């Protein structure tokens, strides 16, 4: 999902004609934070599937790791866009092991968008580690990985305008599946029936499979995971359809709903690590006043006043997701050595030193995927603007993160 994030980010940066240098810095910072080696090592640790809330919070932290600023409604839309993109890619993978190819596309395209050599190094290292971990899986094991990732995306049916336009999604939010054409590597084109007698071939005949199929072709480029926004770089169309209504997700009993559960203390530790890392890296940034504001919306004129907070587009890298989810099945549950319950059940993303917006922190606490109402990016509070302006002028000091 991080890859998607970077794609959308890049597109919006150029759509809003942000100064080139700043745009580059934003991208470099975010990708750098995402692939920071300590964080990546943490990701490779065997662990359970993360709850949706926690994943979202991780991306919010990533979003704030650069000079870009997010407003909350834009962040939500960004996250939704990321989610649906990755769901599309995973669902439409012809065979489960193609997740590697999707990841490769993400990493490769991100390389084109990043302009710092240290960050490129990080990207490469992470991808090599990923390959090593997962090269020896057979196809049924990959199926289990894919199935676990699909748990995360179950019941999410948000309509995305770019998918609707390109005829990839129906009006109900389902993806359109076309399964004719080239079959994946290792498959045979459907149609042949053979019978054997005493182990020797006896008879061969054909049945009509109802579709036209072609044999596998390794030389064709694999499209899932590439940057679909790079084509529409010049258009200023909004990325999400105006009527992007989230279909009410099925209400699941709280006990079984993965999103409502308390996070693993190790996960909290990981988030804390991430915020430390981000804190450290942003310390080296000199210019705080060069904050970049980005919005995911075109209709910014109905915003009352004040600069819309820039939206960090968080598309997680599929890579990022896989690390978490694969571990569910691949390794034994690492036995937790922490015996007491974690004291902080909610993870606070501390932006309070930079932005005293109580509404934002409050919303972060209550973030609940199922019950959020439709939003169109309008701001409710007017006092936001004062804070935001104050934010722009202030140079925040970065001393350790407060955690409740």
């Amino acid at each position: 999902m991080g890859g998607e994030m970077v794609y959308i980010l890049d597109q919006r940066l150029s759509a809003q004609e942000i100064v080139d240098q700043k745009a580059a810095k934003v991208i470099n910072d975010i990708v750098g934070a995402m692939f920071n080696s300590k964080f990546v090592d943490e990701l490779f640790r065997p662990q359970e599937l993360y709850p949706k809330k926690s994943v979202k919070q991780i991306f919010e932290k990533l979003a704030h790791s650069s000079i870009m600023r997010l407003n909350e409604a834009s962040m939500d839309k960004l996250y939704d866009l990321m989610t649906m993109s990755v769901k599309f890619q995973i669902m439409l993978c012809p065979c489960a092991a193609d997740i590697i190819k999707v990841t490769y596309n993400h990493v490769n395209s991100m390389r084109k968008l990043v302009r710092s050599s240290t960050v490129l190094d990080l990207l490469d290292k992470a991808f090599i580690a990923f390959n090593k971990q997962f090269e020896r899986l057979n196809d049924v094991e990959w199926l289990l990985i894919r199935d676990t990732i699909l748990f995360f995306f179950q019941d999410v049916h948000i309509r995305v305008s770019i998918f609707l336009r390109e005829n990839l999604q129906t009006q109900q939010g389902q993806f359109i599946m076309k399964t004719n054409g080239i079959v994946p590597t290792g498959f045979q084109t459907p149609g042949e029936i053979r019978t054997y007698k005493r182990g020797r071939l006896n008879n061969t005949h054909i049945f009509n499979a109802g579709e036209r199929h072609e044999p596998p072709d390794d030389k064709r480029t694999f499209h899932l995971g590439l940057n679909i926004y790079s084509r529409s770089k010049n258009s200023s169309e909004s990325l999400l359809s105006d009527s992007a209504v989230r279909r009410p997700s099925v209400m699941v009993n709280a006990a079984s709903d993965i999103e409502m559960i308390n996070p693993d203390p190790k996960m909290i530790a990981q988030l804390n690590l991430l915020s430390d890392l981000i804190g450290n890296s942003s310390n080296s940034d000199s210019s705080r006043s060069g904050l970049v504001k980005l919005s995911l919306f075109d209709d910014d004129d109905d915003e009352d006043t004040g600069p819309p907070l820039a939206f960090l587009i968080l598309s997680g890298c599929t890579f990022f997701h896989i690390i978490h989810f694969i571990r569910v099945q691949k390794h034994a549950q690492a036995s937790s050595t922490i015996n007491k319950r974690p004291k902080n059940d909610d993870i606070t993303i501390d932006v309070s030193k930079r932005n005293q917006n109580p509404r934002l922190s409050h919303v972060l606490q209550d973030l609940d995927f199922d019950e959020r109402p439709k939003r169109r990016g309008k701001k409710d509070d007017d006092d936001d603007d004062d804070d935001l302006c104050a934010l722009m002028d202030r140079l925040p000091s970065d001393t350790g993160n407060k955690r409740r």
Partner: protein
Amino acid sequence: MSISYKKADQPITVKWSASHLLNNLAIFRPSEPRQSKMFGISHKSGFAMATVSQDGTKQIQGQVICRAMSNNNTPAPENDARYIAHIVQAAYVNLAVRNLLVLACTKSIQIYEPDGTTLLHIHMIDKTPPSRTESSIYSRGIAGVGPNLLCVGNIPQKGSNIFLRETTPAHQHGISGLVSNDTLLISSDTTGAILIWNNRTLLQTNAIEPMDDSGITSLSLWKNCIAASYANGMIRFFDAESGQVAGTIAAHSRCINAIDCNEEGLVASVSDDCYVRIWQLSGDAENLQISHECNHHIENSQLVGVKFLHMSRSDIAVSIYDSTEIIVLRV
């Protein structure tokens, strides 16, 4: 093609959507003709089911949630992320002595009464052997668990006195399917190897080597013929006694998620390519004839489970990823 299906007027709806798992449709076929059928699908950590009356008009929904168990085998708080288990496979098991609902979850096997009301037994999967926690269920109350363990449960007629009887190491890789009939037990694994066991003595009688690089996703039995579906879209049939291949079909352009056989030799296969295909077997494993009977396309749906409604008719039920409907197809 001699069979064509029509969607039944009344679809079966359950509360939660089906996860994308192999063999994700469980059906309880009652022994008495007047009893209602039960259909169920796995959804992440829960099992959603519907009890449907004989004529299909009355439906009652129910849900079972996987219990979360902590490390020392005591119940864990329900919403602690470390202990949430996902269901890998769920099935209704018809034993001679009683009927059960078995949920094979990551880290444990949980056994319930068929209506899901009572938890009869939880068996925690031993973590010391290799880490994968895939499980499969088949009839006869034997569950395959873990990468290479085969467990036999001893089920008494009433009450919750179920305990583990025996554990037999078998496959080198994760077990992906288990199926049995009166005399034989067949197990398959993720590399495509199949082992054939004698049901009573639990000794291995035969082994079938993997045919190609693809693993087996689902197993079924008809007479003495083993039907195996593969992740690369193939279906292969083997003679259970000699272990020789009896037939192959290049059936689907995507991974086959489930197959099922009925007593008449009909085989149904479903796949991510949105198709249900029906095949008719005749003869027997030594001299098999296969004919193709039906292609049924369900638009934009990745099909994850299929079961015949009756062992002697061709009506089937199909489950779809991310959908709360179980589609019933009648001839």
